[in-house]
C-alpha cells in the first residue's frame, strides 16, 4: 500500500527576472535576494505525477524543500495544486550547500517526517542543472533511484514500472518500492491550480524544520558538507567579430563553406538537401 509520496521541490529564480540576477565575484554564487522565485519547472511535473499516483493508489503527497524561508510561498503553491502536506527545511547552516549536502539534508527531512514509499523530484533544476540530487537522495536513503523518468506506473502498490530517456531512445525498468524517481517534463502535463485549491492551501499541514530538528552531522551540511566548489563564474562575452563578404550567391556559399572547413567543421556530415560546393 502506498502511504506517503514525497516530492522534493526547489524554488529557483523566476526566469522573467534573470536580468536582475548578479553573481558574487568572490563566492561565485548567484545573488538571489529580492528575486522572485518559482517552483522549478520539472518539480511541478514531479508534483503532478505524485498526485496522479495518489489518485490511483491512495496515500498522501508531501512536499519537501530545503530553501530560505521565502520558499513557503512556493510550497503553498504546491499545496494549492493538491499536495496534502508541506515541510520546509530552512536554516542558515544549510547555506552554500552543493547537491550532496542538499540531498543529505533532504534525506534527513524525509526520515523526520516518517519516511516515504516513493520519492519524486524533477530531474534537474532550471538554475543549477546539475541533475544530481535525485540520485544522491536515493543513495542517502538507500533506495533504488532512477533519473530522466518519462513514464511511471505502479503495479500492485509494490513495484514501479518506469521508462527513462536515454540519448538514443529509452530504457524500461522495474523497481521495488520504495524508490526515488527524477522525472522530466515529458512525463505529464501539470494540472492548473484551481481557485478552490488556493483557498484550501493555507489550511493544510505545514511546518518548518531547522538543523536542530533533523539530527544532522554538521560536517555534512552547508559549505562544510559540499565537496563541489565553484571554479569561475562569469558572464560570457557575446561579441562577435564580423567580416563582410561580397559576391554572387555561389561565391558566398563557397566562401562560407571554406570558412567552416578552416574552423574544423565538416559540412559534409550534415544533410543540407542540396549539393555542397567543393573548396577551390
Amino acid at each position: 500500500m502506498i502511504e506517503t509520496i514525497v516530492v522534493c521541490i526547489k524554488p529557483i529564480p523566476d526566469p522573467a527576472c534573470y536580468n536582475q540576477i548578479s553573481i558574487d565575484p568572490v563566492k561565485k554564487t548567484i545573488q538571489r535576494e529580492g528575486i522572485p522565485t518559482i517552483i522549478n519547472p520539472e518539480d511541478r511535473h514531479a508534483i503532478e505525477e505524485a498526485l496522479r499516483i495518489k489518485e490511483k493508489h491512495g496515500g498522501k503527497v508531501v512536499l519537501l524543500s530545503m530553501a530560505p524561508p521565502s520558499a513557503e510561498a512556493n510550497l503553498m503553491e504546491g499545496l494549492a495544486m493538491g499536495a496534502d502536506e508541506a515541510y520546509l527545511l530552512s536554516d542558515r547552516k544549510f547555506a552554500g550547500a552543493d547537491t550532496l549536502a542538499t540531498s543529505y539534508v533532504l534525506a534527513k527531512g524525509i526520515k523526520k517526517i516518517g519516511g516515504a514509499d516513493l520519492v519524486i523530484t524533477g530531474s534537474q533544476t532550471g538554475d543549477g542543472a546539475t541533475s544530481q540530487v535525485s540520485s544522491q537522495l536515493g543513495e542517502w536513503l538507500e533506495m533504488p533511484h532512477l533519473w530522466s523518468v518519462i513514464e511511471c506506473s505502479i503495479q500492485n502498490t509494490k513495484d514501479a514500472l518506469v521508462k527513462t530517456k536515454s540519448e538514443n531512445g529509452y530504457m524500461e525498468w522495474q523497481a521495488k518500492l520504495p524508490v526515488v524517481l527524477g522525472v522530466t517534463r515529458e512525463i505529464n502535463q501539470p494540472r492548473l491550480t484551481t481557485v478552490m485549491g488556493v483557498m484550501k492551501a493555507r489550511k493544510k499541514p505545514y511546518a518548518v524544520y531547522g538543523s536542530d530538528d533533523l539530527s544532522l552531522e554538521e560536517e555534512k551540511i552547508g559549505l562544510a558538507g559540499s565537496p563541489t566548489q565553484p571554479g569561475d563564474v562569469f558572464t560570457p562575452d557575446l561579441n562577435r567579430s564580423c567580416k563582410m563578404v561580397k559576391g554572387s550567391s555561389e561565391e558566398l556559399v563557397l566562401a562560407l563553406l571554406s570558412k567552416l572547413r578552416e574552423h574544423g567543421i565538416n559540412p559534409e556530415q550534415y544533410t543540407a538537401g542540396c549539393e555542397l560546393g567543393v573548396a577551390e
Partner: protein
Amino acid sequence: MQFFEFTEEQVMLRNAVREFVEREVAPKAASWDEEDICPTELFMLMGEMGINGIFAPEEFGGTGLGHIERAICLEEISRHSAGLGIALMTHHLAIAAIQYYGNDEQRAKYLPDLCSGKKIGGLSVTEPGGGSDFIGQKSTGERKDGKWIINGRKCFITNSSVADIDVCTVRTGTDEKGRPQLTAFILEKNMPGHSAGRKEHKLGLRGSVTGDVIYNNIEVGDEQILKGEGAGAQIAMTTIAEVGRAGMSAICTGILRGCLEESIKFSKERVLYGKPISKLQAIQLIIAENKLDYDTACLLTYRAAGMKDAGIPCTAEYAMAKLQSTEAAVNAAKRTMDLMGGYGIVNEYPVGRFLRDALASIPSGGTSAIQKIVIAANVLK
C-alpha cells in the same frame, strides 16, 4: 487609512489564473479576434478552475470569494483576450442577478450549471430603442391565463447566441405614477419562441459574440420572475452598475496592463541609434503615462470591488473606475502604437487589438457620458 495590498491568497489566485491564461488564452487570443469566435469550450474549464462562480456561494457550486477576486480573474484574462473577458463578465451578470435576486429554488436550479460552465449565462436589457434609456424599453410581458407571454427584441447583447440562460427585463405594466414597470425574467435558450438574431460584426471585443435576442410569444410561469413583478429596473440598474461596470473596469485594467507590458518589452528590444529605445526620453514619457494609467485603473477598480465585498454602496465608485479605465485604455493603446512605430499597426503585435477592444469597451455597461451623470448625481445629492 491603509494602503491597498492584495492578501497572500489573492496573490496566489492571481498566479493560478495567470497560469491558466498563459496556457489556454494567450496562445489563441489573436486567432479568436481574427476569426471573431467566442471560445465557449473554455467555460467548462473555467468552471473547474472556480472562475465562473468566483463570487457565488459554495453551496451552489461557486467558490464563495468576492468581487476583488472576480476583478483579478477578469484582469488576468483580459490582459490577453478582452473578448473572452467580456464573455465571462456577461456570464457573471446572469449569476449575479440570480444569486442576489433569485429565490432559493431559482438559485438551486440555475447557479450550479452556471458555476460549472455547463451552461452559459447572459443579461438582456438593451433594445434598439435605447440602451442608456433602458426604462423606455419596448419588450413586453403580458399576463394571460396565469402565464406570462414575453415578446420583444434585445440588441447589442453579449453571449446572444451562446447563452443558455438569459436574464432579461421586459415591460409588464406601469406603476401608480404612470411610469413603465419592468420585470426581470429568467429565460432559457430552448424555450419555444426564444432565439438569437443577427450577430454584430464588431470593431473590438471579438472573442465574444454580440447580437440580437428575439422573444416571440415565449410562455413562462411566475417561477421565472426574479424577485417579484416590477423589480426589473432595480435588478438591471444594480447588476449593471455594480457587476457590469465593475467587469468592464477590470477588463480595461487588463488591457492597460497589456499596453504597459508590451511597451516595456518592445522598448527594451528595439534598438535605434545604437541603444534600446527605452533610453530615449520620448519613449520613457509614454511608458510613464502607461504605468500611471494602469495603476490608476487598478486603484479605482479594486477600491470599488473592496467596497462591494464590504457591502458598501459603490455605484459612483464603479462609475469612476469604469469611466477612467475604459477611456485610459484607449489612450494607452494609441500611445503604445505610437511607441512601436510601424510595428504598432502590424497584427503580429497585440496592440492593435488592445485599441479596438478598448474602444468597444466604452459603450458597454453605459457610455462615458452616463458614467459622468452617475458620478455627478452621487456628488450633488
